[in-house]
């Protein structure tokens, strides 16, 4: 089955369940989630190895995006450096899974793979905890650049201390086989998909239960106003450090899974651009939303592999141009989506659901005319830009 048919059916079925008039309101969300879960359970039968591998990568990025969303979306702290936490988790797993003598105090034999996933998360979480304190003093762009410094520095450190990390050649590990009894019935792609999807599901459930509890409400209160939160008796510092720790833990778990999925870890595996793209993913998907993390991760994986191809299929677009500059198409799609859906895909979804079936139809049918309006506005502003020069204001500014 084509991935587009798969995702299209999934969205249609889940959305229908969400808006099912026959269902009492409080069951609709559960029904929508169940339908989606059913699709993901069926995926190994419906999709080929390549698409399953892509979905495994999506599952891993879902975990990172969820963690970053807790920090940035719910708690309002911007991090551009989550790639660093992913790498810490990934290298922790790689070193522990590697059967070479790396560190004196660790047994030379490889650990069971599931313990390395926990270890990756814990180590990254510990680092997140330590960094959470200095982060208390920084705000906005200062915090963003400081976290960016972290991800810029890490590859140099990995290359430098190559006794531990294998240096620029990286570490090659043997991937864990399927659990006993299932070796024959599961291909490796299927097994790794089930593993990553399961972990992602567990991490999403944990996130959901944290976010609907007192800590989650504290995150949002601190984001909205630290002073008001403090007045309500919330320990602002502790809340912010908690967000950093949990967020880094998520990235670490995802990193360890990445090592297991790839079978190799090199200093180039998570670069600055990937790290910054996590932010793109949660903004495109939707800030402060679990659904947003999922959609963002899908975009992160499918945009580079299929974005240009899908655009080339549109009328009036030369396939040649798309092949020549695939990055231009990707960049353009990000800009267009960010401008059309300021609250991300999840925001649009919630608006659609709030509008109900009737409103949804109205919204969808009015799309063409609204797009035309938008185009007219842009044309007007362009004409304006030609006709009026910005410096004509300089004089009047002085006169004032």
């Amino acid at each position: 089955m084509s991935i587009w048919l798969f995702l299209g059916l999934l969205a249609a079925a889940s959305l229908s369940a969400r808006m099912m008039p026959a269902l009492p309101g409080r069951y609709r969300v559960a029904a929508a989630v169940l339908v989606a879960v059913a699709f993901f359970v069926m995926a190994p039968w419906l999709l080929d190895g390549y698409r399953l591998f892509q979905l495994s990568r999506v599952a891993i990025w879902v975990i990172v995006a969820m963690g970053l969303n807790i920090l940035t979306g719910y708690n309002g702290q911007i991090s551009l450096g989550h790639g660093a936490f992913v790498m810490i988790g990934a290298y922790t797993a790689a070193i522990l899974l590697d059967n070479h003598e790396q560190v004196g105090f660790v047994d030379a034999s490889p650990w069971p793979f599931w313990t390395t996933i926990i270890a990756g998360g814990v180590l990254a979480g510990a680092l997140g905890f330590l960094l959470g304190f200095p982060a208390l003093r920084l705000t906005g762009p200062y915090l963003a650049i400081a976290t960016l410094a972290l991800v810029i520095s890490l590859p140099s450190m990995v290359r430098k201390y190559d006794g531990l990390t294998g240096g620029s050649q990286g570490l090659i590990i043997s991937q864990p086989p399927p659990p006993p009894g299932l070796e024959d019935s599961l291909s490796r792609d299927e097994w790794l998909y089930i593993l990553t999807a399961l972990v992602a599901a567990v991490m999403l459930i944990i996130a959901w239960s944290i976010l609907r509890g007192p800590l989650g409400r504290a995150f949002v209160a601190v984001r909205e106003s630290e002073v008001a939160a403090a007045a309500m008796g919330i320990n602002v510092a502790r809340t912010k450090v908690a967000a950093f720790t949990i967020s880094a833990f998520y990235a670490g778990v995802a990193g360890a899974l990445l090592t297991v999925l790839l079978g190799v870890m090199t200093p180039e595996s998570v670069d600055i651009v990937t790290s910054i793209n996590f932010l793109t993913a949660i903004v495109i998907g939707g800030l402060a939303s679990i659904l947003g993390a999922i959609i963002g991760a899908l975009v992160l994986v499918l945009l580079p592999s299929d974005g240009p191809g899908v655009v080339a299929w549109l009328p009036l677009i030369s396939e040649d141009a798309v092949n020549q500059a695939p990055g231009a198409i990707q960049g353009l799609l990000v800009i267009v989506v960010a401008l059309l859906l300021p609250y991300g895909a999840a925001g649009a979804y919630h608006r659609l659901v709030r509008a109900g079936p009737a409103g949804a139809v109205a919204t969808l049918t009015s799309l063409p005319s609204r797009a035309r309006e938008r185009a007219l506005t842009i044309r007007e502003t362009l004409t304006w830009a030609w006709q009026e020069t910005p410096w004509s204001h300089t004089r009047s500014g002085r006169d004032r």
Partner: protein
Amino acid sequence: MTTTLLTPAPWDDWQLFGEQVISGLATGSVYALVALAVVLIYRSTDVVNFAQGEMAMLVTFSMWSLTLAGFPAWTVLFIGIALGFALGGFIERTIIRPAENSPHLTVVVVTLGLFVFLNSIATWIWAQGELPKVFPTPFGFDSVNLGVARVTTHSIGISAVALAIMAGLYLLFNRTSLGLAMRATAQNPHAARLMGINVGRMLMLGWALASAVGALAGMLVAPVTFLYPAFMLSVLLYAFAAAVLGGLDSPPGAIIGGFAVGVAENLFGTYTPDDILGPEMKLPLTLLLLVIVLLIKPSGLLGRSQVRRV
């Protein structure tokens, strides 16, 4: 891991020390110049623009095509500044303005999309044939002997331009009503609008000016690093560090931050033991220094500390 420490370079070699400091200042002047563009856009629109480097790259490549057509270096420099100005204003008006009422991070993501877009466009147009390309300098590459070390006339030219722009920006923001209007717009657009300031035009002007300074920086960096579509990326990252170190809203801070980053990097690379730190770790060490400074002064060396609104 070995326990023997290779001895770092001796401190009493003043000739080497002088050369490291001066070469650090020369590199730092490049960071300072780009950092000024970062400060300019932050100060006038309250946004950190990730596409800053790629906008400069696009202008520099266009100007490279002009030099092929035989235009002299100085002419190209001024056409490039004008093109950068126009490009900045155009981008603000077409894709940044529509995100005006969106969450702050949406604008950041739009600049990230723009980054990918411009990089790919440049690859498409200019990457056929040999890369990197040579870009001319208007200052020449003659060697100037400063006693302990030699620098090129190009490096001196960059420093002079950076200082001149810093002075210009300082005057603009602190001595003109236009600068006052721009600052007011960045700080509180709604209040500024009530005061009768044309907010849209101020934002557009801020982008245009920042893009012009960025384009100038790109055209002065390219003769040293050579010209290829990614040539501004690491410079921009250094410039971010420099701007943050000096304070994101302070033009003199950008200059001091740029020089400090350049010199610190060279000294870390030269005077730390090779087998545990050394040149491979000079970037992490410099960034560590940045973070330490930020912990002591959260808004940079010369930045104005932020007042928390209730």
